[in-house]
Each structure stands twice: as structure tokens, then as C-alpha cells.
């Protein structure tokens, strides 16, 4: 008898332990913690309407910084000439190009987090795709401005477009700049459509649940979506095609950006590793930026139910992996230049390590290698939003420094020692740089209150296909394949 009751006690204890496990798993993983669709709809729509006085004030400040810092300074530069920037012979490219490369890098976040994880069926990425895709579109808009700001005669930029003209000239497609323009335009178009497609059912949801100007806007943007079987099938096909097609476009964009440098005869730039080196660097900074923005957005939009620690942790692991990859490429590039022993190359490396701008170089190594390697192996740190916020912000500072070093640092030394020169950005350049950051945050913030930040239907779909199962004593999530 005694043994009978012991067994029962043991079974009950086991059952309680498993239930506890289940509960923990549910708190951890969004896809096995379902809530009614109506409640999720409400949460997302409330987030879109969360307009506080602080939000408006910040938006106005950012808008003003954009107007004055970016557009006024740009106009000033156009009026008086490129000379108001700090560039000089032989540093013909300065902060503008460094910024261009940086923002193109940030734009890799959306495609990577959204398309690549979608193609590989990384289910956890469902609630964070929208935030990442928005980063792609808006950072590309900012990036696209910089080649124009950089032009000596901006008002003639359309001479690069292949349109019939009185000069009877076709653009020179031998020039990497033409490839660049083509790639960026393709990427901007593609990523905007890729952002829009999964938004359609969310627009329809908003149209059905809201009033006011948003309802009118969503009615137009939802394209008459009713949610019939056929509509879903078309949407799924379109999204699948886009997810696959946008990936090679993403790789091409940053590879071609790197070719702006690698195709030249410049020592230091002329490197066959630049293509993958730039792509890896872009994803490294892009994924870090996604974490930073998710932490901010989750807090200000009160989306803790959707964007959980599990998401931040998974992305933080990606950051660590890409830090390894970036270091590998950096080391390759550095070692070959150093070991090769060409005089000019040596001068460049010496300048980086011991010149007046050496803090930039050491800062890059600190933020891109030392900090991620020293912290992100630790699960506790990977699960701490505050730590992640600081680390990922640091990674982007480091990657920004990398771009400044590659563009302006390498140009200061060349094969003609008489024409070496130092470069210091001018106040106009710095103003435009600050303005570009303000513009990105302005656009992103503005659109978090226009577009539903979380794709509710995708989360809902994920929750329908996931559940908790028990295998003996193990409690795991299981997925039903519905494709």
C-alpha cells in the first residue's frame, strides 16, 4: 500500500514538474503561447496608435535636425561648391561615401533577418521581420542620398540615367558607379515591395478594426484584400518568390559597393576579398542594428508579448557569428597587405596604427572584435536587453569607423609621396552626417505609427502550427508543416 501511494506521489510530482516546464517554455517561446487573434490584433493596433507628446516632440526635433543638418547644409554646399567639405587632393572621397557604405550596410539587416530566415524556415523570426524590413527600406533611402550629396554637380545627376538625351550619350556601363546605381535601385524597389507584400493582410485587418484616417489609408493599401483562399495562395507564392529573389540582390548590392573600391588601382582598396568582406560587415552591422531598434521599438510600442528575449538572444548569437566572420575577413585583408610588404601598403597600415587617426582603428577593433567576443558567448548577457543595446550600438560604431577608415584612411597615402595628405571632415560634412542619422530615425519612428509593427497574421499562423509535446520526460515544441 505504501508503495502505491509513493508511486502516486512520484507521478504527481513528475506531472507538476512537466507542467512547470511547459509553463516556462510557454513564457519563453511566442509561438507556443497563443492568444486569441482578436487580442493580438488589439495589441498591434494599439501600438500603432501610441502617440504620446514625447513621441511628437522627438519626431519634431528629428525632423528639424534633418531639415537643417541635412538639407540646408546640402543646399549650402551646392550653392558654394564641394570645397565647403573637408575633402582635398588626394582624399577625393570623404565622409559622404563612408556614410553611403554604412547605410547600405544597415540595409542588409531586413533582407537577412527576414528573407534568409524565411527561406530557411527559421520560425522564431516571424514577429521581427517587419521591423527589420522597415530598416532596409529607410536606410536605403538615406544611403541613396549620399552619392547625390557627394556629386560635384548634383543638379546633373540624371546624366547617369540611361535615357535619350540631347548629348546623344549612353551612360558608361564600364563604370562601377553605374553598376552601383543599378543595384541600389533594384534593391530599393525589391525591398519596398517585399516590405509591402506581407503588409497587405495586416492592412486589411487594420481596415476592418479601425476608424479615422488610418482606416481610409489602410483601405487603399489593402488593395481590397478579403482573405479568400485564392488570395492567400497568390500572396504566399509572391512572398516565396520575393524571399528567394531578394537574397542574391542583397549580396550583389554590397559586393558592387565594395567594387567601387576594389576595382581601382589604389593600394589597399585593390583587393579581391572586398566583396565578401563588405557583405559580411554589412550583415554584421545590419543584424546589430535590428537588435538595437527592436529593443527601442518593443519598449516604446509596448510589444513585449511579441518581441521576446528569445528573439534578442537568437539575433545576438548571429551577431557573435558575424563578428567571427568579419574578423576572419579583416585578418585576411590585413595580413596579405602587411606580409606583401609593398611600401605604400605599409605606409597605410602604419598610418592606421600610429597616425593621428589611430584611435579610430583601435576603436574599430575594440567594438567589432573585443566587445562581442568578450560578452556574447555568455547566455546571461545575450538575454539582457540593456547589455545587448549597448553592445549592438557599439558594433555599429565600430562598423562606422571601419567605413571611415576604408574610404578616407586609405586615400591619404598613395604611390606619389609628394601628394600625401591628411583629411579632416568639415562642419558641413559632420552636419550632413548627423542629419542623415536624424532622417533615418525620423522615417523609422514615423512609420512605426503608420505600419503595423508586427505581422499579426504571420504570428497567428506560426501559433497554429506550433504546439508543445511531451516525449517521455522531455517537453519540446513541435511544428506541423502546412506548406
Amino acid at each position: 500500500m505504501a508503495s502505491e501511494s509513493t508511486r502516486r506521489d512520484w507521478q504527481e510530482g513528475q506531472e507538476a514538474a512537466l507542467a512547470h516546464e511547459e509553463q516556462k517554455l510557454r513564457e519563453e517561446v511566442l509561438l507556443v503561447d497563443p492568444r486569441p487573434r482578436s487580442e493580438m490584433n488589439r495589441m498591434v493596433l494599439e501600438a500603432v496608435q501610441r502617440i504620446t507628446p514625447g513621441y511628437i516632440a522627438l519626431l519634431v526635433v528629428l525632423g528639424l535636425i534633418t531639415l537643417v543638418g541635412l538639407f540646408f547644409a546640402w543646399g549650402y554646399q551646392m550653392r558654394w561648391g564641394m570645397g565647403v567639405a573637408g575633402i582635398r587632393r588626394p582624399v577625393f572621397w570623404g565622409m559622404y561615401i563612408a556614410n553611403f557604405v554604412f547605410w547600405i550596410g544597415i540595409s542588409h539587416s531586413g533582407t537577412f533577418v527576414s528573407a534568409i530566415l524565411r527561406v530557411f524556415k527559421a520560425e522564431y523570426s516571424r514577429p521581427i521581420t517587419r521591423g527589420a524590413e522597415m530598416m532596409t527600406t529607410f536606410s536605403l533611402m538615406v544611403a541613396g542620398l549620399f552619392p547625390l550629396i557627394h556629386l560635384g554637380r548634383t543638379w546633373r545627376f540624371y546624366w547617369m540615367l540611361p535615357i535619350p538625351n540631347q548629348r546623344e550619350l549612353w551612360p558608361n556601363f564600364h563604370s562601377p558607379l553605374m553598376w552601383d546605381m543599378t543595384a541600389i535601385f533594384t534593391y530599393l524597389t525589391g525591398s519596398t515591395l517585399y516590405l509591402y507584400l506581407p503588409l497587405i493582410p495586416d492592412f486589411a485587418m487594420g481596415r476592418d478594426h479601425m476608424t479615422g484616417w488610418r482606416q481610409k489609408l489602410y483601405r487603399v493599401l489593402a488593395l481590397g484584400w478579403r482573405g479568400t483562399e485564392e488570395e492567400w495562395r497568390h500572396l504566399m507564392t509572391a512572398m516565396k518568390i520575393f524571399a528567394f529573389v531578394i537574397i542574391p540582390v542583397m549580396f550583389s548590392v554590397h559586393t558592387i559597393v565594395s567594387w567601387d573600391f576594389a576595382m581601382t588601382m589604389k593600394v589597399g582598396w585593390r583587393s579581391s576579398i572586398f566583396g565578401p568582406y563588405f557583405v559580411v560587415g554589412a550583415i554584421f552591422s545590419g543584424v546589430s542594428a535590428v537588435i538595437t531598434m527592436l529593443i527601442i521599438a518593443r519598449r516604446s510600442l509596448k510589444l513585449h508579448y511579441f518581441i521576446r528575449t528569445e528573439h534578442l538572444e537568437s539575433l545576438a548569437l548571429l551577431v557573435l557569428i558575424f563578428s567571427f566572420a568579419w574578423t576572419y575577413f579583416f585578418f585576411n585583408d590585413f595580413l596579405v597587405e602587411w606580409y606583401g610588404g609593398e611600401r605604400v601598403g605599409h605606409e597605410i597600415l602604419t598610418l592606421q596604427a600610429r597616425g593621428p587617426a589611430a584611435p579610430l582603428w583601435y576603436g574599430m577593433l575594440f567594438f567589432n572584435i573585443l566587445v562581442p567576443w568578450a560578452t556574447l558567448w555568455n547566455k546571461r548577457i545575450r538575454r539582457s536587453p540593456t547589455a545587448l543595446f549597448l553592445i549592438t550600438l557599439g558594433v555599429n560604431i565600430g562598423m562606422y569607423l571601419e567605413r571611415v577608415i576604408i574610404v578616407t584612411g586609405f586615400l591619404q597615402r598613395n604611390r606619389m609621396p609628394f601628394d600625401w595628405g591628411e583629411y579632416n571632415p568639415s562642419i558641413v560634412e559632420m552636419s550632413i552626417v548627423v542629419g542623415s542619422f536624424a532622417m533615418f530615425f525620423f522615417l523609422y519612428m514615423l512609420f512605426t505609427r503608420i505600419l503595423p509593427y508586427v505581422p499579426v497574421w504571420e504570428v497567428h499562423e506560426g501559433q497554429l502550427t506550433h504546439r508543445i509535446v511531451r516525449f517521455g520526460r522531455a517537453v519540446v515544441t513541435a511544428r506541423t508543416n502546412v506548406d
Partner: protein
Amino acid sequence: MTKPKGEGEQHQWTMVIDLDKCTGCAACVTACYAENNVPVVGEEEVSMGRHMGWIRIERYWEGEYPDVRARFIPVLCQQCGKAPCEPVCPVFATYHSEVEHLNIQVYNRCIGTRFCANNCPYIARVFNWFAPDFPEPLHEQLNPDVTVRSRGIMEKCTFCIQRIRQVEEKAKMEERPIADGEVQPACAQACPTDAIIFGDLLDPNSKVAEVARSRRGFKLLEDLGTEPAVIYLKGGDIYGV
């Protein structure tokens, strides 16, 4: 040598600079400023590395004090046969003239990407950072045969293409070939020691063809394969000693 239709004579304009004769007096630089309407930008801009000269005297110090020697080398656009600046321009503002073997810079096409300048191993290109300023009475001496460039565009040595054209047209009118030494760029004309010799390398009897065969000859950064049209002569020590 094939003649493209209606393009006239083929030439290979070449410059030989005898470094053993060069004293670094910078008369060529001054002459170039005057001939080609190169703006004077002032001390402050020059100290920022923004002087606009199309030719510059590079000066290198050799040895330790008190046994110091200065070496000069005038550097200008090398009119490369395979110019790195040409393919990178998105709007054909710089391109190759097959007939004259010159790098042409079309000011009106330039939109100012400055890609060409970054890719020039000789750092021979200059950019108009600001609109040019020719305060009175400097505007009186502007050369009417040369465009005054606006802000935001690239420029560089043209081998005084306006002078080449003038002589070509005159010879064509008089139905005779161009004589050796008839085309003189401003720098060659001004050089007091005749260190700069200019002419057509395709004419085997020209002075330039003769000195180009000198054993003292070398080209700048020749290993890059840019095929420069400027040949430097250098033998012995400085001043030919």
C-alpha cells in the same frame, strides 16, 4: 596605321622631360596657369592641398643634413595609353582619343563623381572645389581658346589640346604635314633649359622620337601598365653631374 574617316592624321603626342636639365624653376607651372585659365586659389586653399595647377614640381629631399640634395620631378597628366581614369567615369566625361592618343576631359559632361581622380596613380587630376575667381585685372588675360571651368567638375592637363588643334587646322588649310616642333605646349615653350620636349612619336625624324630612344629614359610607375605618354630622362646625378 589606319586612318579613321574624316579624323585626319594619326599622331602620338609625346612629351619628354629631361630631369637632368630641370632646375625646378616652375616656369612651366606659371605658363600652364596662364595658358589654361587655371584659377589661383590662395594660400589657405593651397595649404589644404587644393592648388589647381595642372603640372607641379615635386620636390624630394635626399640625404641627411648637411649633405642634403633636392630632387625635382615635374608631374602632369601622363596621357596614359591605358588610363585607369577612363573606364570608371559613368558619363564618359573622360575618354580616350584613339586618333591622338590623348585622354580627353569633357568639362561639360562631368558631374563630379571624382572617381577618376581616385583611380589616377599619378594624382594628376584637380577638382574645382569652388567656382573659379579671376579678380581684376586677372580676367583680362584669360585665354579665349580655353574654357573657364565651373565649380564641381574635374580637370587636368590636356597637352594644350587647343594649340594642337590650331596647328592641325593650319596645316590642313595649307595642305602640308605638321612640322616637327610646330606644336608647343605652354610648359615646353616656357622652359628656360629646354628640359621639356614635345612632339609626335609616330614621326621617326622628330626630336621627341630621337630623345625617347635615349638610354636615360623611364616612365613614371611604369610597372602599373598604364602606358604613359610622358617619358622622363634621368642619368648621372642631379643637374647631370
